[in-house]
């Protein structure tokens, strides 16, 4: 719908209101919303490259007075947070936690989704209904019992423990979303393969998995980001010890210890955003597609 078409609308007493929807005013409204949404992040990004004395003596927006004065930029905070503040280590820990916590639940969920869609077993519909109900279960319900189980089994603070936790919590949504896709695959295809003597395992790995890749990729991006950005599960099951702390827990500890140390906080925050932002910019299309697929439920 273009602005011209709108201005052909019947003119009336609502002239002022209509003005908002057209032309310059519309652009100004949108521009200010965008500015409002960008400024906070821009401030942190710019601040993380400024020398400490500049940060505490003037606002970050003052860099625009002399944007080409390169003496006002520095990389030293990044060196400091990566090496001395444990952020580099936390970055690796985040990868160690996030990659298996993305692939394991998707593997388990894809197998389960296939069974729900194409195999007969007693209690199938009831199990699926329970699973759909559990999709919105608050994580808080699991914290106390699982923490006790983990402490007893010595899984607290271990990577295996947090992979399993993330997998367990992700299963309902992952199965549901993959089921929606896998159950829509053409029946003929599955039946033809069965007649050719393929086992379910072969059908699953050779046909279903391959055809489901778009759905799996969309979900994988979300699962990865969700794990990367997760704070509560990491805090409770992995803890803040330096050897295992992930970026979010490390960053929150820095907020506690660094209070006003904006040079450290801004650089650390930006390091924690690096992976999500690059995923966002490179895979935005899948991002939107995944959101749309996930939201059509109910």
């Amino acid at each position, binding site marked *: 719908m273009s602005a011209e078409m709108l201005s052909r609308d019947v003119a009336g007493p*609502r002239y002022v209101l209509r003005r908002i929807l057209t032309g310059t005013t519309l652009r100004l409204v949108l521009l200010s919303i965008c500015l409002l*949404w960008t400024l906070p992040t821009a401030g942190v990004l710019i601040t993380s490259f400024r020398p400490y004395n500049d940060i505490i003596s003037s606002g970050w927006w003052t860099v625009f007075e002399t944007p080409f004065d390169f003496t006002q930029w520095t990389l030293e905070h990044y060196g400091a947070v990566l090496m001395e503040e444990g952020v580099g280590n936390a970055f690796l820990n985040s990868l160690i936690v996030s990659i298996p916590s993305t692939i*394991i639940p998707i593997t388990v969920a894809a197998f389960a989704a296939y069974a729900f869609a194409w195999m007969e077993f007693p209690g199938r519909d009831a199990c699926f209904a329970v699973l759909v109900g559990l999709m919105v279960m608050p994580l*808080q319900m699991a914290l106390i019992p699982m923490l006790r*189980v983990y402490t007893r089994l010595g899984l607290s603070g271990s990577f295996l423990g947090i992979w399993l936790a993330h997998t367990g919590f992700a299963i309902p949504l992952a199965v549901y979303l993959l089921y929606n896709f896998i159950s829509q695959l053409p029946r003929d295809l599955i039946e033809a393969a069965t007649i050719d003597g393929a086992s379910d395992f072969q059908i699953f790995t050779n046909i279903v998995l391959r055809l489901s890749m778009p759905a799996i990729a969309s979900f994988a991006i979300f699962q990865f980001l969700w794990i990367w950005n997760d*704070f509560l599960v990491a805090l409770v099951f992995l803890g803040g010890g330096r050897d295992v702390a992930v970026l979010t827990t490390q960053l929150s500890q820095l907020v506690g210890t660094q209070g006003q140390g904006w040079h450290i906080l801004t650089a650390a925050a930006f390091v924690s955003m690096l992976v999500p932002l690059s995923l966002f910019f490179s895979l*935005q299309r899948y991002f939107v597609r995944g959101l749309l697929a996930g939201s059509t439920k109910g």
Partner: protein
Amino acid sequence: MSALQRRVRALRSNRRLRLLTTLVVSALAYLVLRWGFGFMRSDKSPKIAVMLVAIAVGVAGAWLLFWILDNLVSSIPAQGIRDALHPFVFVGPGLLLLLVFQIYPTVNTTVISFLDSRSELFVGLKNYVFVFTTDDLLIAFRNNVMWLVIVTTLTVCIGLLVAVLADRVRFESVVKSTIFLPMAISFVGASVIWKFVYAYRPAGTAQIGLINALVTALGGEPRGWLTHAPANSFFLMVIMIWIQTGFCMVILSAAIKGVPNELTEAARVDGANAFQIFFKITLPYIRGSIITVATTVALSVLRVFDIVYVMTNGQFKTQVIANRMYVEMFKFRDFGHAGALAVILLVAVTPVMIVNVRNLRQQRS
């Protein structure tokens, strides 16, 4: 020997071979995984190597599990048992995880909420009486309700506004990416970003926080925005709104684009203006999507934790249920109170659960 018999015998020996291979692979996998976990636990291992081993172990482990299970079941001679067990090779691990991580904790937490702080003695409704009569907790409940109402309303409204407005300009995709971007940032990262926006320094010194700089530039006094109730809760809500609006916008924008052109054109021909078209046609048409996004946002708002934990840790009357639960668990060590709070969160989402399951039933029939 008939061809059939030969075939059966071949299959049987094939099955034996398969079982043997599976057992060998299982033993090898066990050894490799054990070595992997030992390697990861050792302090001497270089971090990058640990990372690669972790990824290999985690990923290969999951796949091997299914492969081994499938082969074991396939090597069962009786076809009846084999066929009955096969679906559970696929669905079993998922169901087991569901049982361990969702169903068992739900039952257990509910029981814990009726026991004392160390989960030893039955105390009836004492924990619930406590959470509904203590001032600090009443503040947390009030805040959660405020969060629910304000954040859900504002995110949906702003998301809808941007979706509608951006639909009319050529730089739509730029606008959308900008609003959508915070969705990729963690709540902790977003909290640091906004903490900097709200940064406060005493009057007379240079303000480095955006808001206080604006306020002083306009001749006002700088304030500590996070320490003054009740406005401070609103300043925390802004972070959630900032993150979630993009989600609403994307979904609602897709819904708006799905409104048939014939409908809006017909209304236009009948003399309806843009506002009438929006309120009488577009809005009713996308009602379902609005309900969906509002529910999704409300669910995440209900559980809000990270923002409050990082920004104020519940001080200055900004407490919310999820953060208080964490405090009860790790600071006061009162698992009865913590369990009761978790159960209250569960009760709050129960309507959504029921609706979801009912919708599923309707789709099936």
